């Protein structure tokens, strides 16, 4: 289906880990290779879910694959992530997940009890999120060809009424809301790998954000312009994508960004920026100035949203970039994540 006119801009000779890390390299791969060939020209900004029409009914559709090591970690496991991740991608595109299908890629030698535990975790998470698992597929690969198991979930959802999500609708003056503390998931995983000999009382934040999104839409739907769950690449990457897609600047205030002490401590020690760390149970929303306070109240009144904050606003400048104001009146730019977050030495 590729026509000679399709212009491929992805020029890197091979795929590196960074192409899957959710930052700049991932964006280059998607926008430079996948989108031009698969979607053709004229494709708008890529959201968390596709909106399609079938017989006049608009539905949202998305898919996500989960490769995580270790499979289980404090606060969750790959099974829960696989359900919540897809439910959340639909939620932040303004849709309530209705049905999922699941694909398992299993490595020969995987103990049955580990698989069973994950399948049970998926059933529990699906029940909690109010979504039906409607079907699935299984493939087994040779031992050594996969890390225990990979899971892919594909979901469809019904669009919530009273909300229209589009980066194009974002205007200077709009406010940036964040549903809760950031970095819990990424740091939990980093520590759970056990390579760093660090310990912290920390749990992944994996959960369905649908109840929070529903509360937001119910109370302030007309003012909600855009939402995103800042998974790989963190808040910094999601906001940079928005800044590029909408053409405005985003200015966030460092002291307003909720970060737990244990996450801050680990980030200080490892030389990482919490804004680049992955989350699995938080989301960002851009809300019009008039409805921003109402929206914040709605989030805080919903269980799990108590720590929501208004962290900044949309400005005309710096166009296409994200600026953080530090505690002392200084400023710094925050770019997308480049490659994987790597711990530094000193």
């Amino acid at each position: 289906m590729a026509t000679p006119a399709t212009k491929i801009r992805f020029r890197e000779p091979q795929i590196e880990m960074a192409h899957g890390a959710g930052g700049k390299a991932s964006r280059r791969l998607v926008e430079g290779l996948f989108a031009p060939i698969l979607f053709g020209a004229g494709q708008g900004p890529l959201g968390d879910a596709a909106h399609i029409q079938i017989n006049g009914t608009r539905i949202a559709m998305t898919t996500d694959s989960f490769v995580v090591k270790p499979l289980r970690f404090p606060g969750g496991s790959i099974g829960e992530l696989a359900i919540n991740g897809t439910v959340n991608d639909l939620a932040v595109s303004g849709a309530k997940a209705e049905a999922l299908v699941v694909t398992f890629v299993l490595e020969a030698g995987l103990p049955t009890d580990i698989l069973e535990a994950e399948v049970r975790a998926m059933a529990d998470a699906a029940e909690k999120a109010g979504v039906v698992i409607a079907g699935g597929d299984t493939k087994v690969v040779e031992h050594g060809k996969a890390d225990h198991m990979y899971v892919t979930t594909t979901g469809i959802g019904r669009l919530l009424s009273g909300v229209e999500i589009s980066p194009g609708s974002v205007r200077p003056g709009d406010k940036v809301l964040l549903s809760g503390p950031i970095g819990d998931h990424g740091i939990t995983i980093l520590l759970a790998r056990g390579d760093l000999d660090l310990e912290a009382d920390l749990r992944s934040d994996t959960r369905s954000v649908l109840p929070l999104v529903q509360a937001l839409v119910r109370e302030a739907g007309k003012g909600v312009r855009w939402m995103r769950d800042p998974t790989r690449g963190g808040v910094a990457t999601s906001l940079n994508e928005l800044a590029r897609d909408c053409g405005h600047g985003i200015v966030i205030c460092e002291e307003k960004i909720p970060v737990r002490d244990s996450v801050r401590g680990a980030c200080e020690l490892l030389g990482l920026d919490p804004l680049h760390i992955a989350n699995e149970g938080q989301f960002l929303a851009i809300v019009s100035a008039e409805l921003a306070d109402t929206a914040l109240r709605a989030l805080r009144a919903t269980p799990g949203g108590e720590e929501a904050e208004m962290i900044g606003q949309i400005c005309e400048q710096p166009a296409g970039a994200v600026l953080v104001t530090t505690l002392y009146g200084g400023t710094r730019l925050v770019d997308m994540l480049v490659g994987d977050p790597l711990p530094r030495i000193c």
Partner: protein
Amino acid sequence: MKFVDEFRSPRLISRTGEEIRRLADPNRHYRIMEVCGGHTHAIYRFGLKDLLPSNVELIHGPGCPVCVLPMGRIDDGLSLAAEPNFIFAAFGDMMRVPGTHGSPLEYKARGMDVRIVYSPTDALKLARSNPEKHVMFFAIGFETTAPSTALTLVRAKAEGLRNFSVFCNHVTIIPAIRAILDSPDMRLDGFVGPGHVSTVIGCRPYDWIAKDEGKPVVVSGFEPLDILQSIVMLLRQLRKGEAKVENQYKRVVPWEGNRAALRAMAEVFELRPYFEWRGLGFISQSALKIRASYAAWDSEQRFSVPGVRVTDPKAAQCGEVLKGVLKPAQCKLFGRECTPEQPVGALMVSSEGSCAAYFNYEHRKPIAIAAAAN
């Protein structure tokens, strides 16, 4: 966070900023070099430059371990690790640093067994748990990290662990500062002295900078308040026409350094007659090599190393930036051919490299933005 937040107090920081503005003579231009890449990173990350008057200029120094490593050393290390059953272990900082044919991460994508470790003892653990493989720790860093490499080698020898070696690239800070002061195109008024290096070597080794060169040195911590207070201390000395070594980072740096760490280094390392630094060229007695008594754990003595020498790309001006002669954005490649994603020089890679810090936090930043936030 205890012991961090105290040094980030907005009230104290703005008060220290005022003190700097009060002390700086408006008729004078101050050029102060922060030697350490950790300081450079903090200065950009916390937006501290915004708090300084325009006549107090900070010049970024050479204290970034991966930045000063010439590309040939990376090529040498990676060529050894191309042997079957080799594990190449290094700090995260090294992983994206480009060699001639790619960075360690790119070699990993092509199948080399490359591991990120947080300390050299983690590399030793890898060797214990992979007895059928040879683990080579690619050691980098100034005196900050050299003692832990030394202690790891002492332990490897004591255990008689034969499948472990160190490819040693440790360098020392004093000869680099001397090279900068000897450089004719460099005018400096004083130094924010390295903090972590000084926990090991203490403050005495800087005496000559004050006595012979007449420039004040203040050894500094890494929090915003530390750095600003050090600038205050430097300005006070300059105002009085003094030049001495002071220790702002007393809560961590003992004046005499850490004797146990120095002993461990002396046990394992000796000075190389000379070593090549990226941008600064060959500097005599500026790097450490592993003593003959530890030859069995020295990758260079144990295996044959090609000894690759690679000149930096002509257009790249890493050397000028490392010496503080050019600002990152004045390099011809900055932000065009050379970005954090596709770095040409190592200064664009490490979080402590001045080019990466400048690119990530500063460049494209319009000045009037802070006001827009309110």
